[in-house]
């Protein structure tokens, strides 16, 4: 699960990491008030950042500076309500604009092939790390945390020295350890600070001096969906504004569902088979409308929810049902489909393929109910594409 920058920063702060103060605002009036408070505390400029779960906010114009409360309100009116990669901006983060001396990159991520937590650091911060990895891989320092003991002190120090943090190396090592602590505390699969930055801060209002500090200026955290059951408090961080209603219904029904742009709705048991069904629809000249995995031993209520999700998409012109029965009994699925069609409000052609447990009985039931059936997966895909074309023509 992805969470917003402001929520990610809260998690870092709770683990003792240095994060400059911020506020979250949902209206231009709230932005103005936040800017006034931030400037009263000594800031000469504020930064206003769109809170959306997609990358590239800066390039899209979702991150802007303002030198007064008036300007902050004006800037906020352009950011709130704008769309970034199809996502409407409903809230922004307001903070004192940082006086950046130098930017770095630091992250902790689950390394699938090493089966350990991987720490990555680079003295080239503030840019796309994927780009650095391709162009100058030697600029990235990588090391794996111990599978039992986590990130050891000497590892954190090595990382800090590799980043050439100078006098800030102790703070850097502490932040590196903090990233791993954050990962373990919340079951995150990614904790990324980009940029980690040395910033110049006014040393209190009364004195004229300034001091430098290493801080987490931006934060990206993704949480392991499989672990959310043991972090009920983190469920509250799910952004319901950005979650599609169909996604929510699917999640609550325990179905894996991803909406796509095509016209052929797919209902399949098993993730690999569901992807394969989509691929074969494409290969047969059609476009899948969704990915849908019912999961193992799919019960009747799950299948009914799946049918609702597919039919809720007005672009769907045909439905392909592909069930490989193991635990799932084919005749049960057939009965469910026959019943579902009788209650269906929209007449969409359905191509059904059921193999495995009780498949013969399923085939007989479906033919009696005059469903279009298919023996092989390839045949099912071809028939579904033809049916969708027929419906369009």
């Amino acid at each position: 699960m992805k969470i917003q920058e402001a929520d990610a920063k809260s998690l870092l702060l709770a683990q003792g990491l240095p994060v400059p103060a911020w506020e979250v605002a949902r209206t231009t009036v709230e932005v103005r008030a936040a800017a006034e408070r931030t400037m009263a505390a000594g800031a000469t400029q504020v930064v206003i950042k769109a809170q959306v779960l997609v990358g590239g906010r800066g390039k899209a114009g979702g991150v802007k500076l303002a030198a007064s409360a008036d300007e902050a309100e004006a800037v906020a009116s352009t950011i709130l309500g704008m769309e970034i990669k199809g996502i409407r901006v409903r809230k922004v983060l307001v903070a004192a604009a940082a006086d950046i001396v130098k930017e770095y990159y630091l992250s902790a991520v689950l390394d699938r092939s090493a089966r350990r937590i991987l720490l990555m650091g680079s003295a080239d911060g503030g840019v796309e790390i994927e780009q650095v990895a391709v162009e100058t891989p030697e600029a990235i320092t990588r090391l794996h945390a111990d599978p039992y003991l986590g990130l050891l002190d000497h590892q954190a120090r090595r990382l800090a020295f590799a980043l050439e943090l100078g006098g800030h190396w102790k703070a850097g090592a502490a932040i590196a350890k903090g990233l791993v602590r954050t990962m373990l505390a919340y079951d995150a699969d990614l904790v990324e600070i980009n940029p980690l930055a040395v910033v110049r801060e006014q040393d209190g209002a009364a004195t004229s001096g300034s001091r430098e500090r290493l801080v987490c200026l931006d934060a990206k955290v993704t949480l392991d969906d499989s672990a959310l059951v043991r972090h009920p408090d983190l469920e509250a961080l799910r952004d319901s504004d950005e979650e599609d209603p169909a996604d929510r219904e699917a999640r609550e029904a325990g179905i894996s569902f991803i909406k796509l742009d095509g016209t052929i709705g797919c209902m399949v048991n098993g993730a690999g088979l569901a992807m394969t069904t989509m691929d074969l629809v494409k290969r047969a000249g059609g476009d899948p409308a969704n990915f849908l995995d019912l999961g193992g031993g799919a019960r009747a209520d799950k299948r009914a929810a799946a049918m609702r999700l597919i039919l809720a998409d007005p672009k769907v012109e045909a439905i392909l049902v592909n069930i490989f029965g193991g635990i799932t009994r084919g005749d049960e699925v057939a009965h469910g489909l026959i019943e579902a069609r009788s209650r269906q409000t929209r007449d969409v052609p359905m191509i059904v393929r059921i193999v495995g447990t009780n498949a013969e009985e399923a085939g007989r039931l479906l033919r009696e109910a005059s469903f279009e059936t298919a023996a092989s997966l390839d045949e099912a895909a071809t028939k579904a594409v033809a049916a969708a074309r027929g419906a369009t023509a």
Partner: protein
Amino acid sequence: MSILVDRDTRLVVQGITGREGQFHAEAMLAYGTAVVAGVTPGKGGQQTLGGRVPVFDSVHQAVDRTSANTACVFVPAAAAPDAVMEAIDAGIRTVFCITEGIPALDMVPLVAAVGSAGARLIGPNCPGATSPGRAKVGIIPGSVHREGRVGVVSRSGTLTYEAVQAMTDAGIGQSTCVGIGGDPIIGTTFTDVLALFAEDPETDGLVLIGEIGGDAEEQAAAWAAEHLAGIPKVAFIAGRTAPEGKRMGHAGAIISGGSGTAQSKVDALEAAGVRVAGSPTELPALLRDAGYRG
């Protein structure tokens, strides 16, 4: 011969009195697997599955009394890592974990501990393995198989059944079919299974079923190019139409930062001399094209 499961497999089913455990233990028995024991803490002393299988409180007791040498874990995600460690502590060296939904960070110390013990964990979130005509451990329907000499390794469940059924229908039997699981962190990788097949004198052809996410298929391709040059091998990769950044059902099936795409895997496999099918139904013909004479 075969790999991982065979006639000498003596299986203890952990979580045997649960719904899934009961159902699949019964199916394993029906297939001919020696299910010698079940474990459910607090239910020791009972008999299950019509009095055919004794239930024990611990894996240690089960191993003492029945000489079980393989474990299959059906317990819920919160208790599954402990169940795997219990089996290993009791001396079992091959553990299949069927359980889905184990947090990835629980798997990090677990796979390290399994490795230190010199044991092997298959899964989690895997369908298990079948050596047709000998034994099956896990949840793969026995009906899809036919005895033969092709090794199958897959990250998926029902897609594996689909591919194996296609081979069986075409008259191509299997030595062993192994599902390694769809999670980001798993105990046994494609490369590990290929290495076992490479040592098996009764495996003459290979089928690899992969999907988007991670780079395990690419690593397996590189290994196969070096060690399996002489053996006919084919593959299928699911997820050519999957969008980036979306988790496609399996926790591990996600394209992120441009890596883990189906195309990258197809390219790596083809460069390694592995023919990649456009549909699971094309695997048998492609395998014969690659020189398989079974």
